[in-house]
């Protein structure tokens, strides 16, 4: 039923990469600059949504064989479990910590546990947004 929209498809092929890169950047930048798990996840999911709009669901599902409900569930589980991780070190639930490391290539880098938590948030957002949009669009 979907029309073969050449312009949208061609633009999407390029735009999706830009959006995806931007999304990953936003996710990683969130610690010091605008960004973070929620916005990063939302941007990433808008890239996926664009793909689904430009092409049909079957084609994209072949390329990205994820069940987005599971992605969302995985995100929720990560967000909850990383919270309990701090309990093992005697801190209270959802305490986060950070430290600086000297990594090859990157040099002095800050690694923070909050990133694990935020990755859960991002996956949760991606999973939920794409699930909702796919299930509504499929119900035709």
């Amino acid at each position, binding site marked *: 039923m979907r029309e073969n929209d050449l312009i949208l498809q061609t633009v999407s092929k390029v735009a999706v990469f830009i959006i995806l890169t931007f999304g990953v950047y*936003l996710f990683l930048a*969130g*610690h*010091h*600059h*605008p*960004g*973070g*798990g*929620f*916005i990063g996840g*939302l*941007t990433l*999911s*808008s890239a996926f*949504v664009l793909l689904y*709009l430009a092409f049909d669901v079957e084609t994209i599902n072949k390329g990205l064989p994820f069940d987005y*409900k599971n992605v*969302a*569930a995985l*995100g*929720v589980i990560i*967000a*909850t479990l990383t*919270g309990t991780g701090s*309990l*093992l070190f*005697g801190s*209270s*639930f*959802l305490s*986060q910590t*950070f430290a600086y490391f000297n990594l090859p290539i990157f040099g002095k880098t*800050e690694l*923070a546990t*909050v990133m694990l*938590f*935020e990755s*859960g*948030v991002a996956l*949760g*957002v991606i*999973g*939920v*947004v794409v*699930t*909702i*949009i796919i*299930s*509504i*669009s*499929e*119900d*035709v």
Partner: protein
Amino acid sequence: MTLIHLFVLVPILSALLIPFIGKWFPKLHLGWAALFVPVLLFVCFCTAIPKVAAGGPVFGSVSWSQALDLAFSVHLDGLSLIFTLLITGIGSLVVLYSIFYLSKERESLSHFYAYLLLFMGAMLGVVLSDNMIMLYIFWELTSISSFLLIAFWFRRKKSRYGAQKSFLITVGGGLFMLVGFIMLHVITGTNSIQEIITMGDSIREHALFVPALVLILIGAFTKSAQFPFHIWLPDAMEAPTPVSAYLHSATMVKAGLFLVARFTPIFGGEAVWFWLVSGIGMFTMFWGSFSAVRQKDLKALLAYSTISQLGLIMFLFGMGSAALQGGASTESVIYTKAIFAALFHLVNHSTFKGALFMVVGIVDHEVGTRDIRKLGGLLPFMPVTFTLAVISSFSMAGLPPFNGFLSKEMFFTASLQAGSMNIFSMDTWGPLFPIIAWTGSVFTFVYSMFIVFRTFLGPYRRERLEKTPHEAPLGMLISPIVLCAIIVTLFFVPNGLSHYLLAPAVHSILPSYQGMEGLIPHISAWHGFNPELLMTAGVVVIGALLARMYRAWQDVYELFPASRSLDRGYQWLLTGSEIGSKKVTNLYMTGFLRHYLYYIYGFLIFLTGGTLLFSGGLSLRFSHDVPAAPYEMLLVLIMAAAGVGILFTKSRMTAALLNGILGYSIAIFFVLFRAPDLALTQLVVETVTTVLFLLCFYHLPEWPKEDRSFKVRVPKILISIGMGTLTVLLALSVQGNKLFDSISSYFEDSYDLAGGRNIVNAILGDFRAFDTMLEVVVLFIAGVGVYTLVKLKIPKGADDHERK
């Protein structure tokens, strides 16, 4: 985190593992895997006995949320130790028994053992928790796992009914208990039970003390099936027999007794506590045994007998609490014997009732029925089972040489003490206690005899049985044999148990009596010709007579017809509340979206607007405001135009676009006011929403001709204007008020505290991470909700009830 924390978590974690083990080893009977857990824990808890007996409770705490005074703290003292040993010990035997009881081919074993282990962990949590809120959580978890286990054969209507009933009653009681806990927290300012105990009498004068006491007791009474909440226990017998043996006789129903014992140091000595616990306990003891005699189903008989025995132990705890009246003293030390007897009988009851349930399970399994009218003459076929039945039911009847005799004698002692008590104005009703105790014991004797004689002796009628009876496989016999061995052993060497388990438990229930002489009695089977022995002799003689002449007096039960029973009352309440709530719901659930919006916004206007007006929060001060720049004015004009424009659009597409203008303009405002995070979020959200809206277009019907009648439009206009005004006033008042110092200075240190320069994200991911986590969960629930709403198609001809 101590080892004991692990003991609680191990069963719960292994419950999660069980389904996977079932997948990896499809040939294994899952019971063998599950058996490992309770056996291991039993051994671990046994190693703790010397340390606890030496007087050192083990304590460990893991902070959960300090602001809410929540901590996963465990406290292993004498009292908890008895319970942990019962839970893991009887648990091991029950799991072993269930391996032979439940067929691997026909039953969903991964469910069964996952639920059972979940229950085990929850129950260990109940008896080990020191924090009241944690105790409550585990308490309700036992109710939930009990619900799942009773409904294990969920295709049977009666199973579902029994599961629902037990769930409603025990969880309802749990809620009362929670309120009681909160009151205790209000009184004392702490959630730790041990801390409250050390506060002693200083909290007794508080106005909430007695209400908290009553509420907590309701929790205990519902769980331990005390009159009039006992009605759930007989229906819970629809569960598979191993479950009945484990949850509904040996462990879960004793949680209420545990609660009473645990809170005796806090509430003991209070007249209300004494009267409620001992009075209701005594009446339950009588009523349970009286009702047990009329039962036709062996398991129902055992259920009423459990109710009766629980009442007996409850009464003993109530009697023992009298020792705390007016503080610890040498005069009142005699009352402490009741506490000792309660604990002793608690252990004994677990042994003989566990064995009895297993015996009945064997009969049911090998014969195919447990109807007492059809059974008879099974002795030649199942001699071993018969022997086990004799040992356990004679112990229940209180005959030597079995452990039940010892604790039954102590029960009579306590009831005689109750008769001659002169505190709590017991001189009025006190003399009734020994009479009721004795009568109840006679009925106990009668039904104990029924179990043995009507099942195994008497005429054998093959045509009434479903299968040809034969002895059970050895595996099924091991567990009851072990229990019966304990029954006999405890009769001959009770003082070992007393020294290592009962004495430490008495110390933890009565800390103020620590080390006082005469606290721990020496148990001996022969104690001379005293009133107790005569009472037992009377029980045997009269009981034997009544059992023989049952036909002559069974018409007594006609006085209590089913139509006037408490059970009927429960059903009436249930259907009544169902009908009532349906009526109320139908009253406002009209099916019109606009009505629902009226409720939501109307309530908001009423509540928030009311608060704003009457709390004096409304303040409109423009003196500090910065003058608006021209481009800001322009943006506001654009937004206003879009907003008003929506009202007059003729198509959905235009409305969606105008709505988009509003959203993007807000994003521009965020940019202007230097909130890049918000601007980004707003932009992306706006984009995704627009896509969603476009997708939904397909499903929406034609824009209908609006009902422009006055009746419809006036409320709409009122609500809209009200909501708009409220929002504006709120936004303005936020600027005008300064109720407390700003906390933003705390967040400005985000780089030092959380290592991030982005304050917004430091708040989201670290300072207020709990909010974020729960938001993710809510988002997930919403996503799954949309998915199911869209995808769920009820097949034609499905149960109509679901759609109503």
